[in-house]
């Protein structure tokens, strides 16, 4: 499967937080040719384990994490012939009316997020964002039929296909963070041709959007010696400030800040320079809001890095990323893994501030 084919398959699959099974199946079958072991842990995280090619008794472990869950909705009440819903994660409520959705009821039911047409709205309400409380999902069933197909607690995802734009850009729902999962896929492929002395645990995590919960438990389970999370970051658009946003197709972002171990930042930067992979530096002053935040404090602490993929229109159905950035991130991760040795381990273990 090419990177584009993989990305299309995973972004089109439904996988709201806690209910990632659709994506998990694709990830498992796509990752399995490139790893020695494949496991699913109690929180549903997929671990693809590549053992060190240069054997050691107990090789150190690097964990690479990207989350496979997407934001969605859950049915909170069946209200006559429509469904009242609650968010799983956080969509931008401004863009919800009119969105096509898929209700995961007894059978998959295509539907639409409904609201009153503008013609019947009083003028002062036309300018306002319609709160989620006043929106509903309509699948075309009658009030009598609906309870036979849908229960309270059924999940709902956006129904949007993968579209190729110009210049290697692609648009889809759930590129946050299936683009990151694709970077792991690309990394595992790249590693086929490389020697490495650390065990690699590529983990597609669950429940990131509801509080980094899959990363928290898988980091405990893997007990890595170092880790890198891959997630999307804000792509630059004309109306966005330059600070805190990043150009698409100018390479992955290497994050820096308290969430990031300085040695990990340096290793990523050195690797990118050595391979002439374009990259951008993303300063993050506090919590990164990514799996890296949870992994860093697992067990007695994990030296953690973060690679960001610039993405436009986050948490909308039309998220946009550049395929080349994903390839670059995959290559960067693979070559970083190949540089890990005993010397690097001692650099991670040296007290912070004693070396860079």
């Amino acid at each position, binding site marked *: 499967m090419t990177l584009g084919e993989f990305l299309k398959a995973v972004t089109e699959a439904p996988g709201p937080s806690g209910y990632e099974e659709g994506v998990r199946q694709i990830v498992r079958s796509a990752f399995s040719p490139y790893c020695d072991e494949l496991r699913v842990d109690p*929180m549903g*995280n997929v671990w693809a384990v590549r053992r060190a090619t240069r054997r050691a008794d107990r090789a150190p472990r690097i964990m690479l994490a990207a989350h496979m869950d997407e934001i969605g909705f*859950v049915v*909170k009440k069946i*209200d006559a012939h429509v469904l009242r819903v*609650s968010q799983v994660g956080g969509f931008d409520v401004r863009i919800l009316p009119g969105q096509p959705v898929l209700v995961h009821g007894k059978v998959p039911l295509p539907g639409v997020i409904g609201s009153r047409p503008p013609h019947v709205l009083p003028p002062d309400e036309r300018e306002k964002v319609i709160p989620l409380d006043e929106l509903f999902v309509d699948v075309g069933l009658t009030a009598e039929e609906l309870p036979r197909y849908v229960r*309270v607690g059924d999940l709902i995802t956006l129904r949007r296909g993968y579209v190729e734009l110009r210049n290697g850009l692609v648009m889809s729902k759930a590129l946050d963070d299936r683009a990151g999962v694709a970077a792991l896929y690309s990394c595992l492929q790249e590693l086929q041709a490389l020697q490495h002395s650390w065990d690699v645990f590529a983990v597609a995590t669950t429940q990131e959007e509801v509080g980094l*919960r899959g990363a928290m*438990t898988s980091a405990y389970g893997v007990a890595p010696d170092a880790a890198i999370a891959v997630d999307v970051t804000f792509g630059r658009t004309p109306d966005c400030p330059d600070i805190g946003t990043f150009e698409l197709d100018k390479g992955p972002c290497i994050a820096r800040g308290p969430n990031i171990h300085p040695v990990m930042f340096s290793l990523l930067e050195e690797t990118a320079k050595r391979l002439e992979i374009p990259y951008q530096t993303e300063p993050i002053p506090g919590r990164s809001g990514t799996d890296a935040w949870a992994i860093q404090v697992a067990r007695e602490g994990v030296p953690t890095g973060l690679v960001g993929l610039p993405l436009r229109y986050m948490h909308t159905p039309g998220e946009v990323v550049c395929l080349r950035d994903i390839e670059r991130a995959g290559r960067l991760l693979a070559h970083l893994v190949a540089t890990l040795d005993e010397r690097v381990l001692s650099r991670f273990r040296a007290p912070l501030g004693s070396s860079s």
Partner: protein
Amino acid sequence: MEEVLRALSEAYGPSGNESEVRELIRGMVESYADELRVDALGNLMAIRHGPGKRVMVAAHMDEIGVIVSHIDDKGFLRFSNIGGLQNLTLLGNRVRFADGTVGVIGCEKLEDRSKVPELSKLFIDVGASSKGEVRVRVGDMGVIDRSFAMAGSRAVGKAMDDRAGCAALVLALRKMGECRHDVYFTFTTQEEIGLRGATASGFGVDPEVALAVDVTATGDTPKAPTMAVSLGGGAAIKVRDGGMLAHPGVKELLVRRAEERGLPYQLEVLEGGTTDARAIQTSRAGVPTGVISIPCRYIHTASEMIDLGDLESAVNLLLAFLEGEIEL
């Protein structure tokens, strides 16, 4: 059932001061458990050994309350909240401290009576006329003082959150026959201030599967928020709340057990709040965790209301879960 619930509801146990509740529960379960343990955070575990999975069932003993922050020269107490106190419901309520001292919550003169006063405008009057007469000290905790009552088939009292859950565990443990699994009935501490007892006991018990039993809100009162849970509709099986998504396998197994035994149940999507299950789910490498909820009106007020039929269906659902195979 009513007597167990009454005793639990009326007991004193703000977060971090659960010993009275713990001793009460110890007396209720002692002769039914194979083993009792209390851990460093005060969590009480009543254990029934069995050959199957290690299962943790958690209900929290603590309740919301007040903590004295300052005592003025005239003997009035200023206080801060323990957990999610609702200022709207405080005025005129009585509070009771561990030593039996009772006080009344009063309020300063308000500029704007149409607004809910901030906690800093309220004080507790323990009937003293000077600082010297006050027996409680800064740092002492009080709870709302309110007796238990029945209103038809509905039980009303303080601290139904989560003594109703504690009652469900006690009653299930007493009714349970031969034990198929290794079951840790865990009465947790400090839930109301951040699931702290469950965080520690989840790690300590290291369960293979877990359930919390706690109260949930309802959508069946006048102009309530949209929610498809009603009082009297049976135990609620949680899908999600503000803090967690129940494990789909555990949720479906609960649904299956309820249907097999013909127990009334409702599926629950709660938008705010959470339970011990949130903490247990992410303990160590992760624990498949679900929640049996007891629908409750007026949560975090002096008069929390549950339906005894719902409590009974929660007990029976818990037993059905524990007595069957747990394959997820």
